[in-house]
């Protein structure tokens, strides 16, 4: 059995490979999320700037008015806000948000697998370190 026992060497190589692969995948995943997140933030900031410049945001003051006034004017106000929205920016923002949700949903299964693998590898590493430490202690 001694001659044929490849378990330890195989598992060491597998752990090394898996750690590299999983960490690489996680890095790519987070970079994608960050890029999409930054794009959404920039677009939102731009849309806010344009709306502030056009004083569109002042229209929201209707919310502080009496109930009767809100009931009478909310539809007109809403249409004005819609018309004044920077449509291209908002559309792009919508596309990026959808992309973010899609990436999150599509990678759900893969994320679970990667998480489990990394947790197992960490546990394995920890137990190996403990074994090494106790061996040193005995010696």
């Amino acid at each position: 059995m001694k001659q044929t026992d490849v378990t330890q060497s195989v598992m060491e190589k597998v752990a090394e490979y898996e750690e590299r692969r999983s960490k690489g995948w996680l890095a790519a995943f987070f970079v994608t999320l960050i890029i999409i997140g930054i794009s959404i933030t920039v677009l939102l900031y731009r849309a806010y700037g344009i709306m502030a410049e056009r004083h569109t945001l002042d229209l929201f003051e209707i919310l502080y008015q009496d109930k009767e006034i809100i009931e009478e004017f909310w539809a007109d106000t809403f249409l004005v806000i819609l018309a004044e929205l920077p449509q291209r920016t908002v559309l792009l923002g919508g596309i990026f948000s959808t992309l973010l949700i899609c990436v999150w949903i599509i990678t759900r299964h893969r994320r679970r697998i990667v998480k489990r693998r990394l947790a197992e590898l960490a546990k394995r590493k920890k137990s190996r370190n403990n074994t090494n430490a106790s061996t040193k202690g005995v010696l």
Partner: protein
Amino acid sequence: MNNTSDEVLVSEVQEGSVSAFETLVIRYQAKLHSFVTYLVHDPAAAHDVVQEAFISLYKTIERIDTGKKFSSYLFSITRNLSISYLRKAKFHVPLDQALHIASSESPENDLIETDETLRIEAALDAIDQKYRKVITLYYYDNLSYEEIGKLLGTPVNTVRTHLRRAKDALKKELVK
């Protein structure tokens, strides 16, 4: 986990369990080692081939269909790696053997032999791949019919037939 079926262990590995893979390694390493030793006739090389087979298995395990028999897949990976090893080993001549060849042959004989070798290699290249494989394994790697059969996954009688046809085809090519 020792009583769990291979297919369940494979799906566990596909779902992210590294320890399930370790169970598979423990379960199959001895069988694979005997199989590879039988094919390559070198226990030390067999050790490396088995290791390589398991690592290669891990890298491709996500593509395995759990509905199919796992051991067949593993043995076919190992068989292919053994063939690769034999192919590489064929081109490796130990130094002492090389020195012996160098000292025993005259340059003239070398030239004639090189010419013959080139002719045979060209003829080998011209024949059908399945015949070429059998000829290579039988004459270059000195494997028996049974070993070739096991390596290529074909019955011994088929190996015999292929070898006979291969020799005929080679003869025809050399006469051309």
